């Protein structure tokens, strides 16, 4: 090991750098995967269709259609940016409407509601 040439030292430095960067990426990947498992909600993007958003947030599609004021459609592939254009509102506004509808759907049923879930004591 005494006779390492300049090229070999260079190679060792490059190898160390590659390992360091790879390690950083590996840590980042694991951290994101963990974060993803804890916060499972997908960010709503303009390309998504209403059924996709409903599927992603596990809410029935009619809930979202109702919030947008559209009749529920089967096999609807229209991206929400198209819906926003048709309704003359910004995509951000439409996404906010969807998020509110999702939050409402997920909110616990208030006490004294007319449809208590079976098997659960009040």
């Amino acid at each position: 090991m005494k006779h390492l040439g300049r090229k070999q030292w260079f190679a060792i430095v490059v190898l160390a750098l590659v390992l360091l960067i790879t390690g950083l990426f590996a840590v980042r990947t694991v951290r994101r995967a963990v974060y993803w498992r804890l916060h499972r909600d997908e960010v709503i993007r303009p390309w998504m269709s209403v059924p996709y958003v409903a599927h992603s947030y596990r809410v029935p599609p009619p809930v979202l259609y109702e919030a947008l004021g559209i009749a529920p459609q089967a096999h609807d592939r229209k991206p929400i940016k198209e819906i926003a254009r048709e309704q003359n509102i910004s995509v951000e506004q439409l996404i906010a409407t969807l998020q509110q509808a999702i939050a409402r759907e997920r909110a616990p049923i208030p006490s004294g509601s007319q449809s208590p879930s079976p098997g659960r004591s009040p």
Partner: protein
Amino acid sequence: MNLTDQLLAALSLYGLPVLFGVIAIAAAGVPLPVTLMLVAAGSFVELGEMKLWQVLVVASGAAVLGDQIGYALGRWGGHSVLERMRRRKNGEAKIAQARAFAKRWGGAGIFLTRWLVTPLGPWLNLTSGIANYPWGAFLIWDVLGETLWVVIYVLLGKFFSGRVQALLDILGNLSWVIVGLIAAVILAWQLLRSLRSTQTLDQVKAISRRLS
């Protein structure tokens, strides 16, 4: 809306033709977010908007077609480059070496760059063409690799449907980890080889010193 969102919106609206076009163009060497397209297509399959077998056939077909374009560009468009290289010092020998390397490692290289080290794929198409790697063998490895690639990502998208954005973020990082590990292995191997040759050189020097 960025390009990725535009492409995904088009995929959602028009389905297979968009999938075919984007993947073929990307395989020929234009950088487009194809992994995302495959994962999204898998997600649409789960939603019932696309059919699984159609997605698999169309996506693999598009990728193979794009790769053949890259190969053809290397093989026939690459001739002017080849001529210039040949006129250089030792040009002929270098070309022969490249061809021998492509013939020896070509198959495994082509196969792995289809699904594991995908960023290198378009480059290998070109160099395989330039090196005159036999087209029949190129096609077979290509079809095997691309089909595996398509199946992996479409099924990932199907099983993690509704989580396309999150899945992609993780996969993007993972691909850099794979590339980094491969680079590290190659570097370490070369370093080891060069250290060994230094050792032998030292031994030879020591022996010659003793003899003189």
